[in-house]
């Protein structure tokens, strides 16, 4: 990097993710960075972002960062402390605009693996599985994926598709029976932000983080990422950094301060 950055990589990710979220929309979130990004968006440009948790918390005013998507912070001063059947049904019914997911690995169509590395029967590494990810990736309108990018994580073929992206390409989601007009929308990594090409449904670069080169981006992906003239991602402002410290005072997620 040419200049010394005055922010940490995690702070940048949180801010980039927060910028994508819109006021007056609904979002299904997990804990960790997605939660922090949603809380930051609420405290900046999107005060009316409706946060919904898969275990039943609806519209909370989250006091401090929850540790789990079911902990009591997820329904603190909420509009409803409901149930999984209720919130998953609203998801299936089209009420949820955005869903936030993490991923161990992704393919060019935005399919995600969080289940196994190696053989399913006798795995090299057993990961936790779908959790609510398959439900969110199947049923919310737009999925946003946050993950670390390297050659083992941006791969041509996944050993296991836990959560659907665009499956095998255009039309594949609808053919499989998934709700029309849904699918992955953005992928945010430590190097840049990606969207999906409207015709091919393949991952495409839409911004690179300050100081990151196209070569670096390609070197950290097994599949080809078409070089494109893209803008730099907007870095965190001092005010955003201050808010992030307020949201995560113990530095549980925003590490490396």
């Amino acid at each position, binding site marked *: 990097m040419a200049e010394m950055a005055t922010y940490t990589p995690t702070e940048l990710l949180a801010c980039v993710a927060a910028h994508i979220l819109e006021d007056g929309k609904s979002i299904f979130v997990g*804990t960790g960075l997605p939660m922090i990004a949603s809380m930051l968006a609420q405290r900046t440009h999107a005060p009316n972002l409706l946060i919904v948790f898969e275990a039943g918390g609806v519209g909370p005013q989250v006091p401090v960062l929850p540790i789990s998507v079911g902990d009591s912070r997820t329904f603190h001063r909420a509009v409803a*402390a409901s*149930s999984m059947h209720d919130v998953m049904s609203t998801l*299936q019914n089209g009420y949820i605009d955005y869903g936030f997911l993490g991923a161990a690995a992704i393919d060019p169509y935005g399919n995600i693996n969080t289940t196994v590395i190696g053989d399913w029967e006798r795995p090299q590494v057993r990961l936790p599985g779908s959790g*609510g990810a398959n439900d969110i990736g199947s049923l919310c309108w737009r999925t946003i994926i946050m993950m670390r990018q390297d050659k083992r994580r941006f791969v041509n073929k996944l050993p296991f*598709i836990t959560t*659907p992206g665009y499956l095998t390409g255009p039309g594949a989601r609808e053919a499989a*029976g998934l709700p029309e007009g849904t699918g992955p929308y953005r992928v945010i990594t430590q190097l840049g932000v990606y969207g999906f090409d409207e015709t091919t449904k393949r991952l495409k670069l839409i911004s690179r983080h300050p100081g990151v080169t196209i070569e670096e981006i390609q070197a950290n992906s097994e599949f080809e990422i078409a070089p494109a003239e893209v803008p730099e991602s907007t870095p965190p402002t001092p005010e955003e950094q201050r808010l992030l410290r307020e949201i995560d005072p113990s530095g*549980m997620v925003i590490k490396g301060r």
Partner: protein
Amino acid sequence: MEILREGQGELIGWHDPDEHRRWVRENKSRELKDKTMTVAEAVEKFVHDGDFIACGGFGHIRIPMALIYEIIRQRKRNLIMAGKTAVHDIDILIGAGCVNRVEVAYAFGHELRGLSPAGRRAVESGKCKVVAEISNAGYQWRFLAAAMGLPFIPARNLLGTDTFEKSSAKIVRDPWSGKPICLLPAAYPDVAMFHVPRCDKYGNAQIDGILVEDFELARAARRLLITTEEIVDEEVIRREPDRTVIPFFLVDAVCEVPYGAHPTQMPYLYFFDEEHIREWLTVSKTEEGTQAYFDKYVFGVKDFEEYLELVGGVRKLSYLKRVEQLRAPMPAQGGE
């Protein structure tokens, strides 16, 4: 109905709905009777080797830990467990050798705290087998189908993925829309276990905060064991019947266990014991450490009360209460 695709996962906990109705008629008493007993009695009477078990709550929230420790103490074996986002409970039951098969929506991880050394080691070495995959909504709807007395319920998740391929679901053509739709088979656990804030001696139980899938699971399970922070008078229940989540006729055992969810969180009452969870995640990195943990906290104590003393007693528990009620700062946690 045209079957388009069938998942290859093992079908766990399914019964023909008529068989289940007969079982209910013969085995579930509608009598309003005192069901209080000790945790030891409840586990001895209702949990059998090979049973399919599930816990209420979610992850590290509202987990009936006194029952879990008792299952370990009584050395139950070959249990199948619902990984319906099962975290601490399933991890220690696998570590103790009680659970050797899991249907997984989410297991082998502790959310933000990282992956489970004990659970992962057991799966990666073949000691514990994943018999099927599913998602959180998928599991919860399997319980809903069972709670409704139906053989299956349709849903629009799992489609197009390996999560479906390794599930016990089927994809059919919806006779109305003509689109492919996923049919999730009903799941009737042999035993479900819950920890609740209050319950009367008959089993009428209230839950505060989010219900997660407890409403459905309580109605799907054949046997229902409840631990409660306190046993309240029937009058407390009848005064506010809208707060009853689990009515008595579903319940087989009621055990009074204050702080019975420790080290997991009890909404409004006490926070996660991060220190204790971290201790487990650290010692369970080795087989020896795992066994030493059980020797100390399960076999080395006479009951749950003695365990609570061992983990820090009144001082620790009142601290966890202050954190939960936002009167003390949340401890920093995560890795080491």
